[in-house]
């Protein structure tokens, strides 16, 4: 048997999603963003929503999400993605509108916009990458940084008396009447990736059904910011991040 005999559509078990373009990603090797981008692209494709999808990119590492996922995008000011998404969806109810936000965007500068969009029950999906650090600006403390965790602005570790406590914002969002689905997932193992994909799919479906706001938090690694190898970062995340941010559904209506 020749190799060409094997390369047939019926034998294909994996391919790059059609909606993930060929731009070189700026993400560090080992970063969770790449996996989540792939899942978002796959889910939009599988839902047949490529012609109606509108992404709202944040400020942070995912600021260039619009370079990678091949749908219409607006690049929002820091923290304001939910406000832009609110207008994009209300003015075009037939579109699939989602935000893609980091922890600074969702839980620090954009707390008001994020909570209020969710509280109004905007029919959008909010994807929230929580890696406990500001990657893009060089590793500063995030609102979700764990106590004791070292960052460039908490060089001796985060202290509650100086820096306050890590903010589990999805827990707040699950309590809002406007949200229909709030879940916390991760992408460090194939099993986790499959669950995360199912969560994204459900969130997108909810928003098209007009059920309210769906929030998918992906507890993620930032091995560069954490100054670890990708493998060590995955292990550290499971041992430390999951204690504060346990994986699973917080709300599923």
């Amino acid at each position, binding site marked *: 048997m020749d190799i060409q005999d094997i390369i047939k559509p019926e034998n294909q078990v994996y391919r790059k999603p059609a909606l993930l373009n060929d731009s070189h990603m700026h993400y560090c090797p080992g970063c969770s963003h790449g996996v989540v981008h792939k899942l978002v692209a796959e889910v939009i494709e599988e839902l047949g929503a490529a*012609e109606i999808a509108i992404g709202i990119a944040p400020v942070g590492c995912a600021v260039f999400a619009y370079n990678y996922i091949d*749908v219409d*995008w*607006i690049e929002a000011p820091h923290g304001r993605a939910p406000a832009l998404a609110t207008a994009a969806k209300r003015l075009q109810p037939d*579109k699939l509108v989602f935000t893609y936000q980091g922890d600074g965007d969702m839980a620090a500068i954009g707390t008001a*916009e994020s909570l209020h969009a969710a509280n109004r029950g905007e029919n959008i999906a909010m994807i929230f990458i929580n890696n406990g650090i500001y990657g893009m600006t060089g590793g500063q403390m995030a609102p979700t940084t764990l106590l004791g965790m070292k960052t460039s602005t908490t060089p001796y570790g985060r202290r509650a008396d100086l820096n306050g406590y890590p903010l589990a914002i999805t827990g707040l969002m699950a309590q809002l009447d406007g949200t229909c689905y709030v879940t916390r997932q991760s992408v460090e193992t194939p099993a986790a990736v499959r669950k995360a994909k199912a969560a994204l799919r459900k969130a997108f479906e909810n928003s098209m059904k007009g059920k309210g706001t769906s929030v998918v938090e992906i507890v993620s690694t930032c091995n560069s910011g954490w100054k670890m190898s990708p493998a060590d970062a995955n292990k550290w995340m499971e041992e430390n991040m999951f204690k504060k941010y346990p994986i699973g559904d917080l709300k599923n209506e």
Partner: protein
Amino acid sequence: MEEVRLMKGNEALAHAAIRYGADGYFGYPITPQSEVLEVLEEQRPWETTGMVVLQAESELAAINMVYGGASCGKVVFTSSSSPGISLMQEGISYIAASEVPALIVNVMRGGPGLGTIHPSQADYFQAVKGGGHGDYHLIVLAPSSVQEMCDFMWLGWDLAFKYRTPAMLLADGLVGQMMEKVILPEPRPRRTEEQIREQCPWAINGRKNMRKRNVVTSLELDDELMEQNNLRFQRTYKEIEKNEVRYEAINTDDCDYLFVAFGSMARICLKVMEIAKEQGLKIGLLRPITLWPFPSKQIKEISQNVKGIMVVELSAGQMIEDVKLAVECKLDVKHYGRLGGIVPTPEEVLESLIAQFSINR
């Protein structure tokens, strides 16, 4: 069809928007312009034209909703008053940098800080010199009547879409709150998605028929490309300066002194001119309608035939800087202004003119 009504300036803004075929309003209450949101909620245009009306959680959210809607090629606006407009500057800079059309209404109140709820024109610098960060301009229209509150909404959107740039109505608390007769124009339907796709091919409305994706962004980390973006903005501004200067000139052909005033102050100056005429004093008025682009050329021309210019503003002296630049310091330019929400009487303006120019009566 057209309709003649008696209403406040702020109410006219709301009716003008619905009749223009606006797609959305996003705002946060603040005195003295809360009637805009109140009238829209009372009119319920979502049941008639399909217009979206939303009370946002803050001015920050409101301007970013406008940014989102404008990026979709929709006809959207927000309104606020001075402190709220300060909060919106971030979003306004992004809207300018993203080259999307939007309309922002500032019904000015006295500042700085929380200031007062009464009329002021002290946001002139903020409106015409930038306001937010970076090299950009807004097209700034200054209504001086309830009719113009209505008409300039339409003009503002027309210009914003023509040049793909944000426009601002710079009104003040007086024009917002006063009641006058207004002719509301015949309503127009909202644009369909097909029309938006045709007229705004850059709009964020999904890759229908798998067209090439659209991206609206203000970010460009390649400095060479960012400079090119900036040069493109500047070319647009040059075009606007060439084509869109608007002003009203009254008695400027035969006057000894010239008032330059906008908005409610231009109305007061008209009264001053009436009183002065009875006393044998000939005063003309140049009322800039576009504060940016500024009618510099017209002011310079008139300045060659007058003894002096007085700029009358509800500020400590902001527009006077542009008037001085216009006349290139070849003529004495005086200023009269009241601050903190005080509106001057015509008599005190005339007294000031007479005193500052040592006019013998």
